[in-house]
Structures are given as structure tokens and as C-alpha cells.
């Protein structure tokens, strides 16, 4: 800007930069530093902590493999179901008169804190039929109650008695039960954003397609989906970052027990219950490593958008 000193923008940025520096940059650097030190952060141990994560020597105490696999399951299932359901509902609600009410109803869970959601669903999943709504419904339908948060059986066993009895590690009933709660909470978010994206598609385009004889599914595949792709990508990126941060939901509902641990609950246990700051920091670094590529993609897209302007 002509006539302005060069340092004025920096002056405006200074408070934010200071806060970021103290609460973001310093802890991140310190965490990476601690991941190379031992439990009380006294001595250098090189890559021992990362070796611990790879070897998983004490699965009963800190099951690193289960946590990583669970995180992958959350990443894929939570994001896919949330975006898919959000898209479906965006399209459906656009066609009814009570659209605003429907969207509000689906969005309400977003207004509740994660901890409150976890407590509510802990009661819903309770094994006693006079407390747990889900099991009460099952009892009405004549089926046995299922220990939703505890059972590590294959998911279909809860509904139908078909083999296999046990599926590989992350595909457990309790994981899916937790993901269901997460989806219940976040679908409102995807719905609202995708609905806005849907509305930005010109009506004339759809009309023209219909006039040309395109069926609904074709309209969806050829017009809606491609035009909504940027919005879908934004929503997906946000959800992926959100899912990697998942802690309160798992912690309040199961405390990470019964192999429902995710990396966030695991490093909390390692650092603050087992007082092993080395392993805790290493796990936190692994989590950061997962998030960094997503962040880079986000930033690139943002830069591309800026260039277009």
C-alpha cells in the first residue's frame, strides 16, 4: 500500500502470531522433541518410541496397532457415511416444503458438545433394557440385548445370526457403535454445507437436462455431482481432520477400553496415566503425520482459489 510503513501489517498480525507461537508452534516442536526422549523426557533414546509403536509389545496396556487400525476405520467409515448421508439428505430435503424444519432437526445434534453426546449415547447403549433405548427396541423385536460398547464381535452378529463370528481387528460392533454416534452428531454439518452447494447449481441447468430427457440418476451423476465436487472436497477435508482429532467421544463412552482406542485416546493414556511422555509424544507425532498431507491439500486448494480471484 502506498504511504504505509512496511511494518504496519506485521503489527496487526503480531498478537495472532504470538498466540499461535505459544499455543501451537511451541507445543508442536516440543512434542517432536519429546518423542525422541525417554519416559520422563530426560535421556535421548532415538527412535525407540517409534519402534514401540511398530512392535506393540504390550497390547494389553497400550495397543498401538488396534489404535492405528481403528483410526483408519474412523477415517474411512465416518467420513464416507457422513458425506454420503449429508448428500442424500441435501437432495431429499431440497424437494420438500418442510425443508427448513428437516434441516434444523438434523442439525440440532451439532449444537451439543461431544461430551454431552457421549453421555446421552452411553445411556442409549446401556445393556439393561430399562435404561438402554437401543436394547429396549431389540427386546421388543424379540432379540437378545447386545453389549454395544463392549462386544468385539463381527458387526452383523448384532442383527443376524450369520457367521463369521469374529472379523479382523477394527471391524467390531463397538467401533461401529461409536462411529454411529459420531455420524449422528456430524451429519448436520455436512447436510448444511452440501445443501448450500446444491442450491448454487443453477436451476436452469437441471431444467434443461430434464427437458432433454435425462433421468434423476443421470442428472445426479452428470450434473449435480461434478458441480458439487469442490464443496464435497471441502466437507471431506474438514471431516477427515475432525475424525483424526476424535478423543472425547471415545474417551467418555468407553475410555478406550475393549479395543476401541484411537490414537488420540492412546497418547492421552500413555502420557498422562502411564506417565510415559516419550511414547505419548511419538503417538502425537504419528497423528500429526496423518494430518499434514490433508492440510497441504487444503492449503493448495485455497491457494488455487486465491489465484482464480
Amino acid at each position, binding site marked *: 500500500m502506498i504511504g504505509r510503513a512496511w511494518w504496519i501489517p506485521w503489527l496487526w498480525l503480531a498478537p495472532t502470531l504470538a498466540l499461535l507461537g505459544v499455543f501451537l508452534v511451541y507445543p508442536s516442536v516440543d512434542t517432536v522433541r519429546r518423542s525422541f526422549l525417554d519416559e520422563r523426557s530426560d535421556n535421548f533414546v532415538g527412535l525407540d518410541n517409534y519402534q514401540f509403536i511398530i512392535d506393540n*509389545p*504390550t*497390547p*494389553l*496396556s*497400550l495397543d498401538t496397532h488396534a489404535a492405528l487400525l481403528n483410526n483408519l476405520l474412523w477415517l474411512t467409515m465416518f467420513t464416507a457415511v457422513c458425506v454420503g448421508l449429508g448428500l442424500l439428505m441435501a437432495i431429499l430435503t431440497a424437494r420438500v416444503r418442510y425443508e427448513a424444519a428437516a434441516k434444523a432437526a438434523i442439525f440440532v445434534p451439532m449444537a451439543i458438545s461431544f461430551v454431552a453426546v457421549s453421555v446421552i449415547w452411553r445411556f442409549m447403549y*446401556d*445393556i*439393561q433394557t430399562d435404561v438402554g433405548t437401543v436394547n429396549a427396541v431389540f427386546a421388543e423385536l424379540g432379540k437378545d*440385548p447386545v*453389549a454395544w*460398547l*463392549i*462386544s*468385539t464381535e463381527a458387526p452383523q452378529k448384532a442383527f443376524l445370526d450369520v457367521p463369521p463370528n469374529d472379523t479382523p481387528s477394527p471391524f467390531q460392533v463397538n467401533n461401529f457403535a461409536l462411529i454411529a454416534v459420531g455420524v449422528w452428531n456430524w451429519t448436520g454439518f455436512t447436510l448444511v454445507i452440501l445443501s448450500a452447494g446444491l442450491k448454487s447449481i443453477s436451476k436452469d441447468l437441471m431444467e434443461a437436462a430434464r427437458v432433454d430427457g435425462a433421468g434423476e440418476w443421470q442428472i445426479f451423476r452428470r450434473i449435480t455431482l461434478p458441480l458439487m465436487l469442490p464443496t464435497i472436497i471441502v466437507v471431506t477435508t474438514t471431516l477427515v481432520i475432525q475424525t483424526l482429532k476424535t478423543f472425547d467421544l471415545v474417551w467418555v463412552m468407553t*475410555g478406550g*477400553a*475393549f479395543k476401541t482406542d484411537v490414537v488420540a485416546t492412546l497418547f*492421552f*493414556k500413555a*502420557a*498422562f*496415566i*502411564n*506417565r*510415559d*511422555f516419550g511414547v505419548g509424544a511419538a503417538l502425537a507425532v504419528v497423528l500429526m503425520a496423518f494430518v499434514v498431507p490433508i492440510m497441504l491439500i487444503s492449503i493448495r486448494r485455497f491457494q488455487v482459489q486465491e489465484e482464480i480471484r
Partner: protein
Amino acid sequence: MTRYSSRIFPFLLLLLAGVALTFAACNDDDDGGDDGPTDAPTDAPDIGSVDVLGIWGDDELTSFEALVKPWEDSTGGDLSFLGTRDITAQLTTRVEGNNPPDVAIPAEIGLFQDFAAEGLLAPLSECPGLEAKITANYPDGFVDLGTVDGTLYGFFMKADTKGTIFYDPAYFAANNLTPLTADSSFADLIALSDEILALGLPPWSMGQGANGGTGFPGTDFIQQILLNEAGGDAYDGVIDGSVPFTDADVKDAWEKFGQIALTDGYTSQGSADVINATNFQDGVFPPFEDPPEAAMTYMGGFASGFIADQFPNAVAGTDYDFFPFPGGGVTGGSNIVYAFNSDPTTCSFLDHIASADAQQIWVDLGGFTSVNSNVDASSYPDVVAQAQAEQLTTAETFRFDLDDAIGGDLQSTFFTGVTSYLADPSTLDSILADIEAVR
């Protein structure tokens, strides 16, 4: 732009004001959060406040506050209490951040021993007269447990016996069953269970669920069996590491526990999944329902408090009672009190809560067994509480709760191990190896 700013500006101002007010309100709260009225009378000298981190909430907290009130009234001090079951994480974080509380009152001594060894605690001798009082009024066993490297750092309050099996005396009398005694054996317990099973009622009720400690009732059961079947020396060996968890005696104790929990029809819960999912308090109630859904339940002495709360018309001794765990050996837990500094306020506070007069207040309120030998045994509110206090003080063999004594990640691994074992008993060997590996 001016059109927007004239509409938005007042709104922004309001928002800012709201945020500022919220911050002010939050900062005005005590760091305690959960405590009730703690206003000191204005005419007493004010010696400041003491910051205490403990595990008590609800009823227990109300009783503790009643215990502390005379101190607040006479010295003008202020109790700032934060009760959380997540105390290990809280303590660890605060100590790491160089902001420890003044006093901590947890139930496990593993972390206490770590802190003491690292020199973070204030020895009780730094408080005038306190160490002498403790060594004079508390049983040797408890004084030893509070000593690390020859220095006394902590004392115990609110002890609990874990050698109690609760039952409904009316049901036993009506069916000609005799409760066991300390001289009975584990085989007698199985025989009694089979007898009850033949009457058509599941002999046991059991719940393992607990926030942050799922599996702890199972660990209590296993350590009781271990103490009574293998003896005090083996028990001590497991604590100090000379006896590994993979030892035959330990494995036998687990398998006996499995016999009770997993034999067909033995538990009213039915399957391991339901046992794991049932909250430990809910697991205590079935024998006292009308009609009873089970005959016996194993739980520490504090269960009498839940039973009395859940069944307000139940009379102690007639509607609910306990018989000692067969074998005579008693394990028990207790809250340990230790301090991070020896400021005058802290010392005055410790002095008060260690005294028999203060602890008598909680004894009268019920649900509290004191370890101070000056507390009158006959002052306990009902026969069950009295019997528990007697059991604690007269036990032939008494040991501190095993996982509380070791603490740390071995404790949490032990808990997880119990639920894993119940879900799949064939994995016992690998579970035991895993627990031992964490030591």
C-alpha cells in the same frame, strides 16, 4: 460500508461484552468447582486456602466437607476441593506443569511412591507434631505403607475392607443356608454356590463396569483369592515383583475367579459380555431385590453404602449383611493423604483431618471406616459398618489392595486383563504375560 458498520457495530460490542462477562464469571469460580459453600466466618483469623485434589464426589464429598468444617470455622481457612476419578491424569499433568495441589487424596499408592522417591512431596515431619501423632495413633502396617525410603510422607484415612461377600440373611435363613466364616475354604464357597444353584437361583451377581476402571471388581476378587490360597508372602511377592504374574499361584487365583464368573448359570448376568457391561453398582443390587435375582455378590465394604441408598427401607444386618471371604485373609484399600508442601495452612489442615475428632464426624455420617485407633469402635452407625471396622482391625492377615499398591500402567493393564479374560478365558496365559511385561 457505513450502513453495515452501524448495524454490526453494536452487535459486536454486545458480543464482546458477553464474552468478557463469561470470562469474569469463570475466573471468579474457585479452582475447586465441585465444592459447596466454603465461606469462612468473618470474625476468625484467615489463614488462607488449601488446594486439595481427591476422588470424592456426591455423598462422599458432602461428608468430607462436614469433616473439614470445624477446621474452617476455627482457623478461617478455606477448602478448595476438586474431586475426580481421573485423578492420576490430573495429578500427573499438574506435577509436570509445576503446579501441584497442596494436598492429594487418591486411593492408589503407586503414584505416591513415585512422587516421594522423586522428592516432590513434603515429609510429614516438616509439619510440627504431625509425624508423632501419626506414628502414635495409626496401626504399624499403615504407617509402614506411608513410608518411602525411611521417611513418612503420607497417612491413611477412609479405609475399606475388600474381604466381604454380601448376601441377604433373610433369603439364607428361609432356605436353610449357612453363611461362611473366615475358617471356610474356597471349596466351601463353590459348594455353597452349587447348593444355591440347585435351589433355582443364580448364586452370584457381578458387574465389572466402572468409569475409568472397568474390571476393578474382578481384580479385587482375584487378589482376595490369591491372599487366601497362596498366602501373604506370595501376595507381597507379586507386589514387589519377585513373584511374576505368570506364576502358578497367580494363574490358579485367576482360574478360581473364572470358575465363579463363568460357570454356566452361576451369575445372574449370564454371559461375560453382560458382566463386563453391567456397572459395578448395578451388579451389587440383584441379591436384595424383591424377589432376589441372585444370592451373593462380592464387593468391597463400601457397597453397603450403595445398598442402603438403593433400598432405603433395608435394615443393616437383617436385610443385608456380609460374611468374610473364606480363608481369613483380608485385603483392603484406603485413601492416602499426602502433601506437596509444608505451608502453615497445609499443615494445619492435615493436622485436623488426621485427628480422631474430625474423622468421628464422617464415621457418624456413615460409609467411612477410620484407621485412627482413637476412634471409638462402637460409634459406627450400624452393625454392618461396625463388623467391617472390626474385620479391618482384627484381621489375621491384612494386605493393601494389590493393584492400588503397584499403581501406574500395571494397574490399568490388570483391569483390562480381567475383562479380556472374561471375554475369552483361553487367552489367560498371554494376558498374564502381558501384565507382567508392563511391570
